[in-house]
């Protein structure tokens, strides 16, 4: 691999990188990482947030200097000739630096000029890039006006203008809907398989890592395992089972109980059943829930199962995934918590939400799914009383949002997509402020704050400014503040976007126990497998209701090509594409 004519694309040995925070403490981003990328391969860096993936990519493209270790890119020592490295590689950062006030064409021209691509070469390259990304119709559109998925494709096109010898992609699909995500991956796979490009991609999507030739699983600045994805999968061989939920118990309740059992590493709802990963293939003891043995069916392992096993070994903190409310919500589960009828919202002559109706019963978990720009966020904002509806009726906890918005707001909690707490205030100060904002005072306020800190295990961070909390704890604090006033309904807008698999399991465990105690939960998400946690889901596209029902009802819309059961993602893509075809035919 290392002969002079064909040097290996990336060879890193013992890479170390530390940062100093403003508070003076030192954070180790990379702790002795060694990595090799083979020519013409697709390699994934996979791991949770803060594992060091971005830092590693930045070292490779000479945007940062390692504190220690050797790094060669295409046979060039990065430390000795950073510019030479930057001349030959293509890099797409996480927030790709598109100039939003330049058009698609102007962005492309800029990067073509910077890379010194001649006008004749452009004649050949542009049509191919346009065909690949299907941005041809949008050449004159400003990049800022593109959807999230199209922006990512344009970013990719900008890095491909000059046929790089090595392409680095930093979490290219974060915040991108399943359709655009699949399109983006088709492009990347084509580049590797047909054009022989070498690609190094970082991701927190485990299904993406599974499609790569080579993976490096990272955690806390170290590489836990390196090799073909099958090698990671093989670690879970014989450990994975599917469990059937007894009648009347939702799969997610069984999942929460199984997850809490000793010897169970992972449990996730899957197609109405629960997928269980046990710590050891030798462990044959029956799993007992509520005194009953749960029937288990052995199934082949997936990459995710092996990944969770690897992680269990290093991050065995015993994630707490249940919580107890102070007062159980009483009332029948037949009561309607949220009622939306014929909801319309227009912005000028653009209809963002087009006659949508649905009902959510008390204690249900209801999911709003859809591609970018489907009208999810608009619907959400109307439900929370942040945006008035143009037409239709909206009742939340019995209050009509068109007439008594304040009354409804008191009974709902809202966790925004972005971290929306005060970063400079400490955990305690944030809780105190939000408690006061919800009208709590005196003993009641102290009691509620104490409850929140205990339930979300925030005590050890009391005095830390919330902006400096580790990612997962920010999420917890946001949820804690939303629950201070004991709302009947909790709204969560893409709450797990960018969260790692461990944090997402913990999050869903909490949601499940909230719903068991009578809190109604409405969520939006980009992770289709998370829809399995919901009682019912609705799929929106272009403001319209495309499908509604239980996860298994929605899944049955899709017919998979091979004989495996269709996943929620297959169903989602089939439903949206079908609706789009019908619409463009009409």
């Amino acid at each position, binding site marked *: 691999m290392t002969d002079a004519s064909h040097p290996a694309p990336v060879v890193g040995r013992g890479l170390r990188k530390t940062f100093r925070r403003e508070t003076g403490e030192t954070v180790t981003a990379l702790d002795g990482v060694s990595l090799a990328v083979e020519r013409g391969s697709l390699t994934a860096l996979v791991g949770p947030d803060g594992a060091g993936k971005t830092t590693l990519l930045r070292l490779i493209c000479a945007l940062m200097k390692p504190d220690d270790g050797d790094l060669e890119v295409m046979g060039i020592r990065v430390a000795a000739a950073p510019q030479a490295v930057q001349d030959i590689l*293509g890099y797409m950062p996480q927030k790709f630096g598109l100039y939003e006030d330049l058009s698609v064409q102007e962005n492309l021209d*800029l*990067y073509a000029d910077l890379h010194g691509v001649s006008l004749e070469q452009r004649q050949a390259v542009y049509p191919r890039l346009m065909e690949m990304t299907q941005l041809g119709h949008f050449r004159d559109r400003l990049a800022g006006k593109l959807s999230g998925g199209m922006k990512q494709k344009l970013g990719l096109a900008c890095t491909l203008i000059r046929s790089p010898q090595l392409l680095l992609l930093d979490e290219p699909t974060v915040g991108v809907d399943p359709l655009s995500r699949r399109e983006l991956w088709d492009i990347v796979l084509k580049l590797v398989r047909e054009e022989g490009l070498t690609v190094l991609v970082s991701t927190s999507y485990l299904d993406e890592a599974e499609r790569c030739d080579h993976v490096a699983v990272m955690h806390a600045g170290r590489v836990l395992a390196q090799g073909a994805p099958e090698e990671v999968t093989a670690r879970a061989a014989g450990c994975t089972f599917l469990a059937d939920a007894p009648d009347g118990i939702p799969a997610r309740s069984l999942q929460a109980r199984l997850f809490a059992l000793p010897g169970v590493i992972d449990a996730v709802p899957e197609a109405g059943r629960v997928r269980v990963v046990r710590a050891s293939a030798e462990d044959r003891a029956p799993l007992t829930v509520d005194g009953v043995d749960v029937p288990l069916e052995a199934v082949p392992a997936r990459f995710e199962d092996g990944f969770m096993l690897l992680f269990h070994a290093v991050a065995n903190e015993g994630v707490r995934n249940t919580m107890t409310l102070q007062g159980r919500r009483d009332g029948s589960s037949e009561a309607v918590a949220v009622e939306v009828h014929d909801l319309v919202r227009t912005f000028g002559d653009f209809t963002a939400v087009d006659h949508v109706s649905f009902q959510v019963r008390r204690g249900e978990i209801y999911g709003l799914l859809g591609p970018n720009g489907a009208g999810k966020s608009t619907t959400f904002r109307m439900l929370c009383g942040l945006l008035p509806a143009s037409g239709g009726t909206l009742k939340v906890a019995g209050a009509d949002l068109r007439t008594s918005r304040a009354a409804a707001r008191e009974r709902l909690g809202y966790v925004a997509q972005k971290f929306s707490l005060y970063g400079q205030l400490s955990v305690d100060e944030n809780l105190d402020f939000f408690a006061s904002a919800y009208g709590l005072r005196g003993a009641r306020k102290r009691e509620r704050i104490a409850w929140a800190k205990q339930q979300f295990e925030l005590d050890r961070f009391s005095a830390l400014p919330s902006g400096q909390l580790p990612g997962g704890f920010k999420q917890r604090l946001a949820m804690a503040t939303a629950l201070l006033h004991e709302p009947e309904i909790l709204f969560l807008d893409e709450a797990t976007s960018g969260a790692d698999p461990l944090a997402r399991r913990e999050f869903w465990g909490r949601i499940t126990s909230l719903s068991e105690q009578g809190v109604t939960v409405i969520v939006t998400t980009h992770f289709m497998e998370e829809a399995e946690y919901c009682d019912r889901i609705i799929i929106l596209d272009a403001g319209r209701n495309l499908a509604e029902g239980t996860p298994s009802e929605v899944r049955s819309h899709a017919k998979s090509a091979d004989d495996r059961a269709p996943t929620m993602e297959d169903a989602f893509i089939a439903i949206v594409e079908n609706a789009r075809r019908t619409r463009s035919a009409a």
Partner: protein
Amino acid sequence: MNADDRPTVRPGGALRRIAALIRKETYQLLRDPSSVAIGIVMPLLLLVLFGYGLNLDVKNVPVALVMEDTSSDARGAASGFELSEYFDTVTVKTMAEAERLLLAKTVNAIVRIPSDFARRVELGSAEIQVIVHGTDANTARISLGYAQGAVGTWLAREAARGRLLAPASISIENRLWFNEANESTYFLVPGLIVLVMTLIGALLTALVVAREWERGTFEALFVTPVRSVEVLLGKTVPYFVLGMIGLALSVIGSLLLFGVPLRGSVLVLTGVSILYLLVALGIGLVISSAMKSQFLASQICMVVTFLPAMMLSGFMFDLRSMPWVIQLVTYVFPARYFVSLLQTLFLAGNVWSVILPNAAVLAAMATLLMGLAVRLTRKRIG
């Protein structure tokens, strides 16, 4: 897409990259309403504001006129006040009444023409008593000057009629050099140029560079064959052009709207403005390479460039009347040198003994700051 053996550095690559960056920056500048507002609208707005609104001249000072003498000479002298645009007169009978008005601040000054005025005019020792309310020392001093002027007007009128009177006991010595009309517009309007250049050069540049850091656009840009000097040039050139447009607007506005004389040469004015603009651009680039947030960059720019340009440059307040410590501080800020160049070029002419040392300081500062900006801009993150 196999391009392993393509040369990575082509002849003319740098020029093409710089041109591409300049083009990109220009598109962004033209599409961003706030840049156009700061570059074009603001100079015009400041010109109108400073030219018409902010006026340091003292006009229409309310004055109580105490006529103890009713002779034609007394009335003639009084008419000097009544006809002056600098005074609004109220005629009262007694000194007591006038004093009451003065204490109530209804009037700012009392002009008393004593009962023996006419007699003493003949004797050549006439007196007009002027009492000015001293709370606003500046207005007081100027009012006193105007009073002398008003009497002088009367004397001149009498002289024109062939009646030569010795200038009475009031000496007339209020002529200001280079600003005979004592119009503050004459020195305010050229001073505007320093504000416009500071805002465009330092503030706008710091903001656009910090914006690239904030939006993460630099990260992708850096991993291309582009060199950091090229990035700096791409940023500097469009804002340099915008600054020169702001200069042209301010100069043309001063000349046409306010009739400010331009006694020095246009060429020298352009030259020293270029020097100052380079200094301002350098400050903007240095600040933004250290502060990677737009908010911080704009705050620091305001404190380091705009406020000193306003307060410590001699544009609004005379440097000589400041405490010596503050006077020393003003030498640090480039605006001081530019204002003194501007005032000299507009009101005095090509006075080389002033122009050369000031321009030399600006040139040195420009070289230093630009060099620092190049050193500080690294294609690195964090």
